[in-house]
């Protein structure tokens, strides 16, 4: 179980290194194949590891393996270790499985790019980083993975480094994540001080001993990191801009894997979060607020990738709700199905963008239904899954979360339930707004002009991978059907089972499941109906009040707020220091010293007449004075 996990972890690293070191000695196509191959090997290894785990007793599916002691300081010993357990296995399978498909898709998508090799090296590096994150056996390795995925994300968002907007977006993502990472690291320091170890087992074993304040602070710090990585309010502003990266990057990093790391983190650290119930509630509330906010903003976006990006934020909001109320299994379930259908949507959108030679503005699109028939089917499947229509995967996972929040009960539970249902309505509207605008109606003049007929729907590497994801998006939900069978939850159970006793168990009853499903599907259908009335039949923009539209188009002014709160004061202080301190004080002191010395020299220089007799007289006078002094002092 452990040996394949090591292979799984190291294969993508080997791929990245090979592509980097071989450079121009291999063809661009081979670089793509190498990258795909290394991730596929990782997937095969993950599958082996998973099968080995299935063969074991359910309580014996956890294994730690330490390569060597990586760091030791005093009593603190930190090994280079990985932890293989059901939770990391699920993540390994999702990351490498979806990752392999997306990297394979990139071979076709990135075909015309002159810097293909760099792209594939980065992609393999990302998969390695993400695997480090999910396989980490202690907090420090987790932090290494956490930082590496941030780096890979930065490199890939800024892949088109000749575009200033891409570079700015990359920096924005890095800085917003650094804010979260700082909170994350502070929590680690607190853990070292309080528990004296960074081992998962060691820390979790002592989670109950932490005092209330410490537990809350630790959980808050961890939540800060999770919120930044998963683009939840208030550290979400980087994700829409991250769409500057190539579309496969958006699919892999900013939809399927990296942005869900926050959900994984909360699930992994659940003993710490359970020790701080107020932070758990905060997690759920942030998730609910984000899912509503992102759903609303998605209604007015015009860039096809940004619509999907906001939808990603919204869906991760659902997952945060789930892990916030302790329904870890449901959160991970939605993480998995979301990875399938969101990667599908992104890659299908990638085909559209590819066919239209880079056009991303939905207002320029239309009538692609007949021109790109297969893409239309893929996109429709993804959209239906996203909107939670039965029997597609999104239906099972999203309804499970909403039902869990109903089962959690209390004021918070009902609020989350209402938010989840409202989110279902919004999801229906914005998803099918995209579908109707892009695929419905007649081809627009711009489409006729730009459609690259030779490209069509792209090479097999693109359509085949999207088709596989489409199948997964349809059947992926079958691993767990509420009330009928739940192997997924059973598989994950050992991780959370130990602490289950003091947790209010959030298992919705059958009635709650049915009521929730009926409501959610009804609202989703209503959303689709609204979208049809507004965008499908009429194809016109809605006459919303201008203030509302304006606010949504500016994403509720978060960017402006952060500009006002952080950027302007900081640059103002910097400017003030430049004109008040740097100029007169620092520069002034330097020039003052030099000009003072020069003036003094000029003054003293006048004493140097150049006449020999002056010098001689000065010496004589000096001697005379000295003689006088000696004589008189005695």
């Amino acid at each position, binding site marked *: 179980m452990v040996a394949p996990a090591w292979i799984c972890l190291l294969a993508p690293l080997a791929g990245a290194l090979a592509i980097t070191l071989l450079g121009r000695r291999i063809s661009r196509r081979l670089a793509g194949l190498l990258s795909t191959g290394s991730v596929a090997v990782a997937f095969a290894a993950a599958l082996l590891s998973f099968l080995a785990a299935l063969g074991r007793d359910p309580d014996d599916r956890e294994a730690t393996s330490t390569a060597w002691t990586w760091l030791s300081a005093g009593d603190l010993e930190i090994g280079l270790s990985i932890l293989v357990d059901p939770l990391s296995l699920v993540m390994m399978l999702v990351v490498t499985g979806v990752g392999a498909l997306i990297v394979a898709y990139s071979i076709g998508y990135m075909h015309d790019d002159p810097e293909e090799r760099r792209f594939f090296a980065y992609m393999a590096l990302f998969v390695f980083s993400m695997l480090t994150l999910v396989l980490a056996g202690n907090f420090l390795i987790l932090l290494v993975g956490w930082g590496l995925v941030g780096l890979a994300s930065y490199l890939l968002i800024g892949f088109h480094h000749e575009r200033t907007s891409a570079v700015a977006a990359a920096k924005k993502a890095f800085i917003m994540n650094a804010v979260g990472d700082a909170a994350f690291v502070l929590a680690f320091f607190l853990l070292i001080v309080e528990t004296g170890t960074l081992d998962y087992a060691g820390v979790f074993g002592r989670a109950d001993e932490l005092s209330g304040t410490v537990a809350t602070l630790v959980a808050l710090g961890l939540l800060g990191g999770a919120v930044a990585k998963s683009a939840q309010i208030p550290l979400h502003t980087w994700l829409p801009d991250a769409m500057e990266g190539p579309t496969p990057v958006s699919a892999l990093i900013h939809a399927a894997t990296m942005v869900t790391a926050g959900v994984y983190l909360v699930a992994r650290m659940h003993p710490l979060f359970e020790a701080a119930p107020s932070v758990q509630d905060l997690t759920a509330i942030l998730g609910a607020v984000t899912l509503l906010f992102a759903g609303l903003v998605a209604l007015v976006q015009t860039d096809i990738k940004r619509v999907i990006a906001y939808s990603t934020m919204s869906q991760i909001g659902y997952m945060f709700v789930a892990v916030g109320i302790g329904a870890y299994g449901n959160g991970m379930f939605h993480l998995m199905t979301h990875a399938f259908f969101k990667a599908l949507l992104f890659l299908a959108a990638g085909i559209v963008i590819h066919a239209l030679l880079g056009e991303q503005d939905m207002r320029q699109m239309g009538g692609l239904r007949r021109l790109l028939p297969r893409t239309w089917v893929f996109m429709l499947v993804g959209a239906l899954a996203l909107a939670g229509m039965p029997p597609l995967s999104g239906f099972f996972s999203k309804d499970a979360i909403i039902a869990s929040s109903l089962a959690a009960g209390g004021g918070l539970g009902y609020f989350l339930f209402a938010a989840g249902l409202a989110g279902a309505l919004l999801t229906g509207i914005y998803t099918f707004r995209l579908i109707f605008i892009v695929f419905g109606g007649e081809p627009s003049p711009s489409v006729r002009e730009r459609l690259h007929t030779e490209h069509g729907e792209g090479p097999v590497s693109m359509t085949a991978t999207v088709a596989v994801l489409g199948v997964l998006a349809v059947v992926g939900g079958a691993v767990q059907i509420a009330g009928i069978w739940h192997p997924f939850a059973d598989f994950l159970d050992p991780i959370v089972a130990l602490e289950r006793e003091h947790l209010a168990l959030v298992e919705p009853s059958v009635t709650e499941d049915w009521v929730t499903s009926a409501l959610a599907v009804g609202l989703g259908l209503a959303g689709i109906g609204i979208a049809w009335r507004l965008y499908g039949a009429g194809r016109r923009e809605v006459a919303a009040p201008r203030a509302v539209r304006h606010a949504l188009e500016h994403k509720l002014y978060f960017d402006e707020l952060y500009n006002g709160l952080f950027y302007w004061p900081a640059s103002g202080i910097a400017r003030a220091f430049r004109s008040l301190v740097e100029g007169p004080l620092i520069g002034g002191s330097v020039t003052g010293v030099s000009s003072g010395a020069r003036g003094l020299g000029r003054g*003293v*220089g*006048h*004493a*140097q*007449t*150049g*006449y*020999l*007799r002056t010098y*001689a*007289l000065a010496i*004589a006078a000096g001697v005379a004075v000295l003689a006088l002094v000696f004589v008189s002092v005695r």
Partner: protein
Amino acid sequence: MRGPDVTWYLAVAGVLFATGSLGVLLRRSPLIVLLSLEIMLNGANLALIAFARQQGDAEGQIFALAVMAVAASEVVVGLGLIVALARRNVALDVDKLTTLRG
């Protein structure tokens, strides 16, 4: 003890020193300035030897010998400089050699 009193010797030494000083300060030819400098040194030597005689020990005489040695070397350097100046057709006038003006 024979001979005039030490005061006389000192008086002669003072006259020599003053003469030399005036020569250094007033004359314009570097050669004469060097000569005047020698006169000053000899005035000092005379004073040293007079005191040595009065005190009855040899220290002053040894000092005078040292001064003579230094003076000889100084003359070598000084005359060398003057010859070099003359060779380069520079005017031998200390009032015109004012390159050190600040």
